[in-house]
């Protein structure tokens, strides 16, 4: 029973890790950074509303740029 529960917990942990982090850990880290920045900007109106989407877009550009470098290396599963 305990072994089954431990196995199920391990499977769930691995599944969530693959699901949320997977091969793009930079996006998981970026999200954490965005949450922290959002709390720093709490109470602001225009500054937070402008800065938060721009930063998210910046993180996305960095991640896609990283993906671009790896993709054309001949792999059929980029």
């Amino acid at each position, binding site marked *: 029973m305990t072994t089954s529960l431990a196995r199920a917990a391990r499977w769930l942990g691995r*599944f969530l890790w693959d*699901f*949320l982090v*997977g091969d*793009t850990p930079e*996006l*998981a880290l*970026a*999200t*954490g950074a*965005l*949450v922290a920045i*959002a*709390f720093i*900007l*709490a*109470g*602001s*109106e*225009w500054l*937070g*509303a402008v800065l*938060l*989407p721009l930063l*998210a*877009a910046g*993180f*996305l*550009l960095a*991640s*896609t*740029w990283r*993906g*671009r470098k790896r*993709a*054309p290396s*001949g*792999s*059929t*599963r*980029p």
Partner: protein
Amino acid sequence: MHTSSDLVLVLAVFGACLVEMVEALTLVVAAGVSRGWRSALEGAAAALAVLAVLVVAVGVPLIRYMPIDALRVVVGALLLVLGLNWLRKAILRSSGHKALHDEDAIYAETVAELNEDSDAGSSRPSKGRDPVGFAVAFKGVFLEGTEVVLIVISLGAAQHRLGLAALAAVVALVLVGIVGIVVTRQLSEVPENTIKTVVGIMLSSFGVFWVGEGAGIHWPGSDLAIPVLVGFWIVVYFAYTALLRTQLPAPAETVTEEATTP
């Protein structure tokens, strides 16, 4: 809650469910054709039942007991991770740096694998349930559906519209199911990559909005900021796609994706 954010919620959930269930249908049809329809349909139904229980078991307590601001930060972060990942894949695909999702190839590969299993001795029982067909259909629907469940719970809980989000998912599910039964094959004609792009844009919009809202940022125009964020992400998508197209090595290689990716 404004109608505009409800509309974006419904579209995001409907689109996400449509895409994921088309992918699941490919595996269910492959299991049905190779191992028998009874087991495949039972496997799919069992997975759907588990997913429905998950929505109620996780979603309802979240809405009732978690403070709304904390809930919005958590689900905003979750939506942002999912949305940025979907947008990243969409940009890489539309700019030619990543293979398009090919349901036909996935279907052919799954059927071949299941037929190999039959040849290797895991023969299909003439009566009763075929465990291989059941497992393939269950796994396909459960794994693809988990992403939908997360999106339904996140969007539904953050806006206190769990019922509306679940309804949008069920409508998409029924639609895919009916079309799948009528044509009795995988739906490779569905513009999956386009729908994924739209959903990625919406999830990213909601993600940024809820993270900011939960943390205490005051969005100008309140909920009307959501359609503005959608417009922002549309511009970002087209700008990044155009930028990355200039980075393609010549000649561009066309590759076929071999595995199911969420």
